[in-house]
């Protein structure tokens, strides 16, 4: 059975390692914060200028001067630091973020990503996405395998305007966990009960599924 968004977040959460500094994008990536493995301490960065982002505040703690990059009210934690936007992207560009997780509209088998603009629709802007994908060494894309019209989002080439080129190395969708290398999507794990044929059918790009592909453990 295909994963729901919570399960996608759960699977990605298992990639978190103790001591990681992590930037989680809006949408499914945000959910990952709820599944941080026990004994693993991670520090969340919010690119509007907060390192060590805490949970949403209790009603009486709400502070309009303390929000995350999704404009949600948040809290600080012991050890948090606050800084300006130039400093925030300094740490992003200089590779200090150990793991970046973001959503996407399309991923190409060479690692290209498109997630900011659909021609003909109102363009809201790229926010910090272009800086993140151009700078991070370790990016996981969290997304549905197909769009709402049933078309594959894992493509030979992106059709939408790009956010970044050859930068994505891992993708977790509702159908599986993929590594991008040698111009192909290499299937590492299947969603529980999903078989390779189903995944092949939903993947427009080149799929490589060598040997026994284990089922995901969530």
């Amino acid at each position, binding site marked *: 059975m295909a994963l729901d968004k919570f399960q996608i977040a759960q699977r990605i959460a298992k990639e978190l390692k103790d001591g990681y500094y992590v930037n989680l994008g809006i949408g499914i990536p945000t959910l990952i914060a709820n599944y941080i493995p026990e004994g693993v301490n991670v520090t969340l960065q919010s690119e509007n*200028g*907060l390192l060590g982002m805490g949970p949403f505040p*209790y009603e009486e703690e709400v502070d309009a001067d303390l929000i*995350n990059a999704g404009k949600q009210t948040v809290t600080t934690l012991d050890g948090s630091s*606050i800084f300006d936007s*130039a400093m925030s992207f300094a740490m992003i560009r200089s590779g200090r973020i150990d793991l970046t997780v973001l959503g996407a509209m399309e991923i190409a088998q060479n690692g290209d990503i498109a997630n900011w603009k659909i021609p003909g629709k109102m363009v809201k*802007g*790229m926010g910090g996405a272009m800086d993140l994908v151009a700078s991070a060494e370790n990016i996981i894309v969290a997304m549905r395998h197909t769009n709402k019209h049933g078309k594959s989002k894992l493509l030979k080439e992106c059709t939408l305007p790009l956010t970044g080129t050859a930068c994505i190395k891992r993708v977790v969708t509702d159908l599986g966990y993929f590594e991008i290398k040698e111009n192909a999507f290499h299937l590492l794990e299947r969603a529980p009960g999903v078989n390779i044929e189903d995944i092949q059918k939903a993947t427009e790009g080149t799929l490589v599924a060598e040997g026994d592909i284990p089922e995901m453990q969530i």
Partner: protein
Amino acid sequence: MSKVVDNANQAVAQIKDGMTLMLGGFGLCGIPENSIQALVKLGVKNLTCISNNAGVDDFGIGLMLQTKQVKKMISSYVGENAEFERQLLSGELEVDLIPQGTLAERIRATGAGIPAFYTPAGFGTEVQQGKETRMFNGKNYILESAFNSDYALVKAWKGDTDGNLVFKGTARNFNPMMAMAGKITIAEVEELLEPGELNPNFIHVPGIFVNTIFKGTNYEKRIEQRTVTTK
């Protein structure tokens, strides 16, 4: 040579039609509420506004969009504003979308006397169009340049009459670099103090960058996404 004025109307009085303004804030957090209201009252037109976002329909820069004072927005994300969308689609409004980190660094460069620098963001995308690129250590970068801005309008938490500024929480965001980047910088503060009341070790913007300062009033500090934890 006092930098202090009584209110926002005095502070913005010299801003003219066609000028380029930087406005601090991320979303509605840390925006110069008083200065924006004064700009609406002043009625200056054809402004180019550099600000990470464009406010919402009835708050922040959205107020200046309603009165059609803005010719061009330079931002990284402009999603929360129906009037903005209408003006954009009708061609009344120009928009230049810039990656957020590039926007921050270009503003910082302006205030640091750096005319241009290389950054990786946007390489291979339409952001690169018309720009020089170059490889350093095997990685591709785009040449990006400083802005020319006439005024910077920033909002701080505390300030002193010498123009030193301190920010609170994530209301800091773009404000410090913009304060450095304005040819003329106007700062509005919640608390206006005497020199010596701020610890010199913990000043976010040294007073040398601030030309005009005033105590703002009636801060609304509207929240876009009120998310809470229930007990």
